[in-house]
């Protein structure tokens, strides 16, 4: 996943809705059968302890960074709970983008034109993906990417968007390093310093997680799931309500 342009925390947009109620509304409003059943399956309420929440680490790889013009080329899903990242149940889909693939993204994802030529359109696998997502809280690193690209792809194909609660490991990292008020010392002696990177690899390193070769949707999802386990082990607790983590 690429999120270089989207690193900055968009504060003020974080008021999380009452998701179970929101899902009920969305289920009534949805026109697409697959979306309707996704919403109808429901979602845990915000006061559920994180250890009891079924989670799904999600990553999409795209042709570029602009949701308006770029498209999804692959989707990786790894189901997990707080104490187990179920890599053994990971799923991966290549999907044929409706836009041309640039040379740049090929080198990043290692996905070739010929592989994508044989791949299905996202709409063909949407049912499978939504089935797996149903009842799970998504775990992503940089939620804007997943939300915007998935939303755009769905609007494009079925003329409906999608909403779901997301735990964003980048945002959890950002809370630690970006939103903290400067110390008195820093206010008195301001100094230019390199901000701590909250991108996936450097964040993982801070928790002693191994270096993975990223930019494969499943590997990135796995890496994100492991990062969440580490963040909760260090900074939260198994009983932390999921409502404090999701957005």
């Amino acid at each position, binding site marked *: 996943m690429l999120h270089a342009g989207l690193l900055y925390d968009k504060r003020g947009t974080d008021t999380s809705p009452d998701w179970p109620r929101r899902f009920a509304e969305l289920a009534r409003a949805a026109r697409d059968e697959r979306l309707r059943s996704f919403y109808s399956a429901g979602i845990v309420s915000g006061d559920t302890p994180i250890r009891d929440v079924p989670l799904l680490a999600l990553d999409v790889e795209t042709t570029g960074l602009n949701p308006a013009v770029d498209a999804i080329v692959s989707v*990786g899903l790894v189901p997990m709970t707080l*104490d*187990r*990242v*179920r*890599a*053994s149940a*990971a*799923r*991966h*889909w*290549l999907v044929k983008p409706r836009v041309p693939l640039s040379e740049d993204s090929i080198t990043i994802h290692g996905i070739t034109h010929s592989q994508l030529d044989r791949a299905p359109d996202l709409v063909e696998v949407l049912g499978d993906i939504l089935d797996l997502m149903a009842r799970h809280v998504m775990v992503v690193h940089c939620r804007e990417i997943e939300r915007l690209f998935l939303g755009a792809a769905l609007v494009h194909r079925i003329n409906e968007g999608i909403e779901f609660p997301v735990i964003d490991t980048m945002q959890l990292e950002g809370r630690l390093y970006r939103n903290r008020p400067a110390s008195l010392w820093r206010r008195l002696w301001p100094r230019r310093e390199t901000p701590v990177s909250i991108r996936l690899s450097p964040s993982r390193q801070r*928790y*002693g*997680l*191994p270096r*993975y*070769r990223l930019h*494969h949707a*499943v*590997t990135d999802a*796995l890496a994100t*799931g*492991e990062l969440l*386990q*580490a963040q909760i*082990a*260090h900074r939260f607790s198994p009983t932390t309500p999921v409502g404090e983590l999701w957005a």
Partner: protein
Amino acid sequence: MQDEQQEIVDFLRRYPPFRDLDEGALEHIGGSIDVRYYKAGSPIVDFGQDALFWHIVRSGVVEVFRRDGTLYNRLTEGDYFGEFGLLHRKKVRFPARASEDTLLYLVPEPVFTELFERNETFADQVEIEDRSRLQKVVSRQQAGNDLLSATVESLVQREPVTLPDSASSLEAARCMTEAGVSSLLLVSGSGDTDAAVTLAGIVTDRDLRTRLVAKGLPLETPAVTIATTQVVTIEHSRLVFEAMLVMLHNNVHHLPVLHQQRPIGVIALSDIIRHESHNSLFVVSRIYRAQTVDELAALAPEARASFVRMAGGDTSARIVGSAMSAIGRAFKQRLLELAEQQFGAPPLPYCFLALGSMGRQEQSVVTDQDNALVLDNRFDPGRHDEYFEQLAKFVSDGLARCGYTYCTGGVMATNRKWRQPLKVWEGYFDTWIEHPTPEGLLDSNIFFDLDGVYGRTEWAEGLRRRFARNARQHPRFLASMARNALLRTPPLGFFKDFVLEADGRHSAAINLKRRGTAPLTDLIRVHALAVGSEALNSYERLVEVMRAKVLPPGRGADLLDALEFIAWVRLRNQVEDLKAGREPDNSIEPERLSEFERKSLREAFTVLSHAQDFLKYRYQSARAIG
């Protein structure tokens, strides 16, 4: 798509034992793996919990502990743990903890077991992950057994409280009160140099009460007068277990602990009881209290029960062997005391001998009685033998009733040949050693495992010293013994449902004593005799043999571990027999073993086989005698 687990498979490929797996097996494992993060300091698995996964360390550091909390191993990227629990009753044997932030890959138990059973190379690599695996198995057993393997020294909590032997009773009482102890040692000698100090007596609370106050003696009475001067002591290196036996049998509650003749502390019965739960010691104490043979015979089931408790727990074979020997010895001693009550005091001093496994302190629950009588040299058959024959028969019949079957080879004191004065015994040993033939020595092995049980036990020590000194100077004797030690060999292989014999035959079962512990014991005895060792126990013998540098480097330690492992499997098997209500024996069918035990046994037999080859080479002057 098959690339979901690409990252995991790529990782595995970098490390043994995965490196050598074919692509299919690698993807099978990789596809089964789940992941879990552990923060530094958090526990991963606890002892005794169900073993569900084989753990591979993806990053971080994991510390694996023995049950007693000591560090067993420290693992890092590419290492793995948990296989022992998976192969062994599916319970976690070694607790583990993340000592740094750690990411673990978890392989589910069925995937691991299947790969282990199907892929020989993988199984071997997982097992030989480090060369001392057998050693670890053995040390694990001992780790769980600190009660019985603890030495007396470990119970000593403080320097002994002492006074010069010139002290008065009043001084003694004051000194004990100040120090808050229930016993005091009286020492003689200059006191300037430690070496000169010797133990003159011990005074206890009870002595002050019964021997001073109750008798109305003045407080100035020298403490020595009320002290016990024939002090029963114990060496610092003996096992706690043995200290308990000494106390029980001598009816004392305080035992001075000696190091090079010098008292280094006192242990009390209460110290030991604190360390004791219910085990064989209580059987021993009841044996000593039994008043009739019937009462003794009634204790036989308890002896078995305590065997099941020990061998079925994590007690090492060596400790079980010594505990069972102690029980056997107690039976003999008590029977002899009862015999003397019945037939009157003996007309001459004698020494009752334990031979074979009891002499070596390696008794199991399946055992026959090998015993003999050494009589005073003034022995006159016409005048004295009636008494000793009666005595021997009483003991032998009594032992049979207590579960020790008669010796089929007739090596019992009831046999006139083995009921002889000391000088005849000396002649036996001299003849065996100086005029050896393999045939003549065939049945005399067990006489070289001779221990005095009752009476003039120093005669047994004298005989042992005599043949230990003599044997090493007689290469033909050693060669004959070596040749006999090679008569019984281990099987070639050991498979799921059969035993592969050297001639290619398949057997359904294997006798672990005849094919394992006995040839090992024989082989160790030859080496021990060759280096002039007076030790009886195979482990102790081996230690002396190793010290004499007779064996190639490393071989001695391997033999120790092989002996412990085979003996352990044998005991476990007997425990299972007893629990299932079967009569225990020494045979085992391979399908009753776990894959892990089969592999370890195979390894132990290989060690034995190599050791036999070495024995053959080392004492090959056997050819000279044809």
